[in-house]
Every structure is written in structure tokens, then in C-alpha cells.
């Protein structure tokens, strides 16, 4: 009976009900997107930085990793010193540079990373294997596509290009042994990796004992912050940043972003709430007479509230899944637009679906929609019956 009355009211005003459902769905979708946005970038940066398990990064004094062309000199002794520490599990030295690969369509340039295959944390193998010999190379899809080669092919690559002489320097013939994805590079960015010693040799005498960066993985249960201080004291010519510190920096840079998302999310929530409250208030007001009749024949106040609440809940129950779908589709679309933002690592997501946050937000919206019916219906059911019947023509 209660259900019949509730649904009859929704069906009687079909257009209004559909509009309300759409309105709430849009607001739920927006809310979801904002929740996804507020946590998405931070979480994906965090997982990006934590993924390879390196807690410390050493860069030339006063720079951030790869921020400049600056390099660390006497790198081998530095790496050896670090590796000698009992707290250190693994050190991955990285030398940055470029590879110029002549093709029939011109010279293709790719970012080059010289690493030690056994300890590197810069790429994930997709296919093939890591370089084992000095003349071996791995590259990402963007590079392989640009040079039109694949695993097993050999290429001639140079580490330097002199625009005045129009000549390449440090040319080697290298064999492609693997297809990889670089963790910190954007998808469209061309990259290749080869043994550290090979890249050094190609770059020439200057580079023979340099690195751009060293990543340090500590043994379990080592205090990363204490080690950071310790290494910074030990090696005053490098800047040591911890992953935690890097996350903090990213966090700081993203805080405006997050505030914006939180505010817009709150606005969506409020809009959704107001929408349902308005609908419920209108619905109660036009049924004041009907409610008075029900009260007059002995229907309890709680029943009348329940009936209105069921109406609100039904709208929410339909609108929220629609909003969820809408939000996910929108997030995906926006993500694909934002992913084209140049220079962002491939793995960064602006919108990250985090179940707890998403369910909390949608739960809040549903609860607010359900509660929105309580006040107007209770008020409507509390009016003086005789007076209301006198004033309201019903039926």
C-alpha cells in the first residue's frame, strides 16, 4: 500500500521524476569525478614513486633528478661507498643522455638511460630481455615505432650530434633485445636504455665516471629519513631526497588542485541534496490534503514519512548507479584528454577510482537524498488535520 502510493506519486509526475533522476545522476557523477580527481594524481604519483622500491634519490647538488644536464662526478667511488653501507640493499646509478638514430626518414632522437641492468628501476620489460652484453639495447614503443625496428634488429646509434659539423659522434652498432615501458616517461616520449658503461663510452672521456642520478633501495626496517640525513652529511656534493619527501613535494604542488576538487565535490553534493529536497518539499506540499486525509483515517505519522522517504530513496537508487556510470565514463574521457599533457609519466592517472572514497561520497549523497524527505514529510504530517482539510481540496 505504502509502496503503491510512493510509486504512484513518482509515476504520476513522470517527467519530473525523470528530470530529478537525471539531475541527481549528474551531481553524483560530478561528485564521483571530484573525489577521483582529488586523490587520483597524488595516489598515482605515490605508487609511481614507490613502485620500484627506491627510498632515496641522489642528484647533483642543488638540482632535482634530471632537472638539468648536471651530472655527479667521481660517481663510481660514490656508488661503491653507498653499496658498502649495511643499510643499503641496492644502488642503481643512472646516466642520462640522448641517442641519435639515423633512419631513411631522418635522424630519430630518443632519451637514453645508461643503467646497470641487474639493479635498474627505470623500466619494466614488456617483451624480450634486458641488455646483457655491452652492445645491447632496449627501447620503448615510441622509439621502435619511430625507427621502424623491433627486437632482434640492429641499429646504428650515436650519443652526440654536432650541428656545426653536421656529424654524429660516439656511433655504435647496437642490437635491440627488448621492448620496455619507462616508468617515469610519458607514453609518447621516445626512450631507450643501454648499459651504463656503453653510454659512458659513447659520450666520451668527459662522461667516463659520471652519473646523473643514483637511486638507493634500503633494507627493510631502515629509517629512510635518518639515512637521508646521514648520506647528505657523508656526501655533501649531492642532494639527497627521499621518496617520502618527493611525495610531500608533489602533494604540495597538487594542493590547489585538490582543494578545487574538494570544493567542487562539495558543491555537487549540495546541489544533489538541494535537488532532492526541493522535489520532496514540492511533492509533500501538493499532497498536504492527501496526507491530512490519511491522518484523519488513522494512518500514523511515521507511515507518511516512510512513504515520502521511499520516494526519495527510489530516486536515489536509480540515480546513483546512473551517476556512477556517468562519472566513470566522464573520468575516463577527461583522463584521456589530460594524459596528452606533455611530459607526464604514462602511469599517472588524474582520476583514480578509490572504492572507499567513492562509496563514501555516493553513500553520503544517498543518505542525504533519503533524509531530505524526512523533514518536509514530518512537517506535512504534523499539520492540524481539520484545518488542513478545510483549506485543501483533494481527490
Amino acid at each position, binding site marked *: *500500500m505504502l509502496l503503491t502510493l510512493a510509486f504512484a506519486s513518482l509515476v*504520476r509526475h513522470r517527467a519530473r521524476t525523470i528530470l530529478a533522476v537525471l539531475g541527481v545522476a549528474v551531481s553524483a557523477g560530478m561528485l564521483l569525478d571530484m573525489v577521483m580527481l582529488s586523490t587520483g594524481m597524488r595516489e598515482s604519483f605515490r605508487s609511481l614513486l614507490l613502485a620500484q622500491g627506491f627510498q632515496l634519490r641522489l642528484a647533483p647538488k642543488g638540482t632535482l633528478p634530471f632537472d638539468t644536464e648536471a651530472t655527479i662526478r667521481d660517481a663510481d667511488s660514490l656508488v661503491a661507498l653507498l653499496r658498502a653501507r649495511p643499510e643499503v640493499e641496492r644502488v642503481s646509478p643512472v646516466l642520462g643522455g640522448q641517442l641519435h638514430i639515423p633512419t631513411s626518414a631522418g635522424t630519430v632522437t630518443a632519451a637514453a638511460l645508461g643503467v646497470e641492468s641487474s639493479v635498474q628501476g627505470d623500466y619494466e620489460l614488456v617483451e624480450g630481455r634486458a641488455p646483457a652484453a655491452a652492445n645491447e639495447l632496449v627501447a620503448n614503443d615510441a622509439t621502435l615505432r619511430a625507427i621502424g625496428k623491433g627486437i632482434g634488429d640492429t641499429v646504428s646509434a650515436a650519443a652526440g650530434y654536432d650541428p656545426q659539423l653536421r656529424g654524429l659522434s660516439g656511433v655504435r652498432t647496437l642490437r635491440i633485445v627488448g621492448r620496455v615501458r619507462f616508468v617515469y616517461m610519458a607514453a609518447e616520449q621516445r626512450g631507450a636504455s643501454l648499459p651504463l658503461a656503453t653510454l659512458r663510452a659513447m659520450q666520451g672521456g668527459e662522461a667516463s665516471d659520471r652519473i646523473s642520478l643514483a637511486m638507493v633501495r634500503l633494507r627493510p626496517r631502515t629509517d629512510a629519513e635518518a639515512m637521508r640525513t646521514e648520506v647528505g652529511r657523508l656526501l655533501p656534493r649531492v642532494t639527497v631526497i627521499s621518496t617520502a619527501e618527493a611525495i610531500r613535494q608533489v602533494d604540495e604542488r597538487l594542493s590547489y588542485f585538490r582543494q578545487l576538487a574538494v570544493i567542487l565535490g562539495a558543491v555537487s553534493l549540495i546541489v544533489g541534496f538541494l535537488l532532492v529536497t526541493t522535489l520532496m518539499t514540492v511533492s509533500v506540499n501538493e499532497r498536504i490534503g492527501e496526507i491530512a486525509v490519511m491522518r484523519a*483515517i488513522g*494512518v500514523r505519522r511515521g507511515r507518511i514519512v516512510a512513504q515520502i522517504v521511499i520516494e526519495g530513496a527510489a530516486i536515489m537508487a536509480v540515480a546513483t548507479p546512473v551517476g556512477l556510470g556517468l562519472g566513470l565514463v566522464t573520468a575516463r574521457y577527461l583522463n584521456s584528454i589530460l594524459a596528452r599533457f606533455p611530459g607526464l609519466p604514462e602511469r599517472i592517472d588524474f582520476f583514480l577510482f578509490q572504492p572507499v572514497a567513492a562509496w563514501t561520497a555516493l553513500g553520503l549523497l544517498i543518505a542525504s537524498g533519503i533524509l531530505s524527505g524526512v523533514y518536509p514529510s514530518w512537517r506535512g504530517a504534523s499539520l492540524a488535520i*481539520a484545518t488542513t482539510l478545510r483549506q485543501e*481540496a483533494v*481527490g
Partner: protein
Amino acid sequence: MSAPRVDAIVEVRDLVRQYRMGEELVQALRGVSFTVQRSEYVAIVGPSGCGKSTLLNVLGVIDRPTSGTVAIGGERVDQLSDARATEFRLRRIGFVFQRFYLMQALTARENVELPLAEAGLGGAARRERARALLEYVGLGRRESHRPSQLSGGEQQRVAIARALANEPALLLADEPTGELDARTGAEMIALFRRLNADGTTIVVVTHDEELARAAKRVVHMRDGSIVDDRRAEADRR
């Protein structure tokens, strides 16, 4: 007033109802006292605005008097809490309104089921009783119709069936023929007669002389007071 007290269904004493209209106090009832016995059929008549509906609303526990007492079936109802009053209306009072006041979204049978459901009667038994009630008021074949598909007289019959649903001690009707044409009104009068003959205590407010004549007792009101209260010739002992 010489009737045994146990048979008094309604006992009203010094009933006053005032409405505040801004600065002014409207005196709708100015100290009304009267008693209705079990199985009586009382018509309340009088000029418009004399307080008939106000009196009926207080008897039906949908309005509270400013002062005075009302007992129905021996129970004081003038100061009940909202929850108790609601329960009392459900179980003890049947109310029929001038404009029927049916739920438009529900069928005739569902309208009758509404107070039965509220009283906790479940599924099949409820449907069965609603059907029997519609049969009783002569609407057996209309149970699945919605109010909009019924004539005024038929709607009023549904409303009467709804009012009788929980076997009330007292059936109250406020101008029940007010919206009906003469012929349908006559049918309604016959129905009220039959209800009374079957033992239902009825208090009806009306302008309709025919309806008033059908009652065994007519109470005349004027300006918030009872000015005349007499039993019909045929019924006098």
C-alpha cells in the same frame, strides 16, 4: 438522558472551540453538551458557519476542543496525544467527507484496504474483508476501478466502506450528499438507513432535509450552540 450510561457512545460536556483569526477570536462552539446512544442515528443541522463541522471534527478526534470534555465509548479523547489520537481514529472512528477524499492512486479495494493495513491486517484476509465491505455498500463489481473511473455516488460508497473497515464504534459523516445529485443522494440516504439498521451508530452533519428526515434524531445548531434536539415522531417512545 435517562438511558443507561454504558450505552452512551458519545458524551460531550461544555464543549468550547475557539479559533484565533489574527486579533479576533472566532467562537465556533460555545459550550455544547449532548449524548449519543449506541445505535442512534443523529443528524446535525443548522445554518452554514454555525459550528456543525467543528463539532464533528472534535468528535472524530481530528480537532481538539479549547475546553470541555469528549468521551467516546467511555474513553476521554479530548486531550489524547497525537499517537493515541491516531490510533483511536483508526480503530474507533469512521469518517465520511463531503468530497469523498479517496486516494487517487489506489483502486477502490486498495482504498478500503488502507485502514485495514494500518491496523495490521495482512494480505489475503485484508483483501477478503475489503471485498466484503465493497459488496456491502453495493460496489462488488467495481473493486479494481480507480476513483477517477467512478461516479460521485460510487466514490462516496467506497469512502463509506473505508470508514467501516475497522468496525468503528461511531460513523461520522460531514455533508455526505453535498456533492451528489438528488437521485444518488437518495441512494446514499438508503445506505445510511441500512447501516444504522445493521447497528452502526451514525452522526451526520447535513443541509439535506431528506437526509435529516431519515435520522431518528435531529440536533439543531445555531451560532455555536445547540438550540433544539428532538427525536423523530415515529421513534418517540
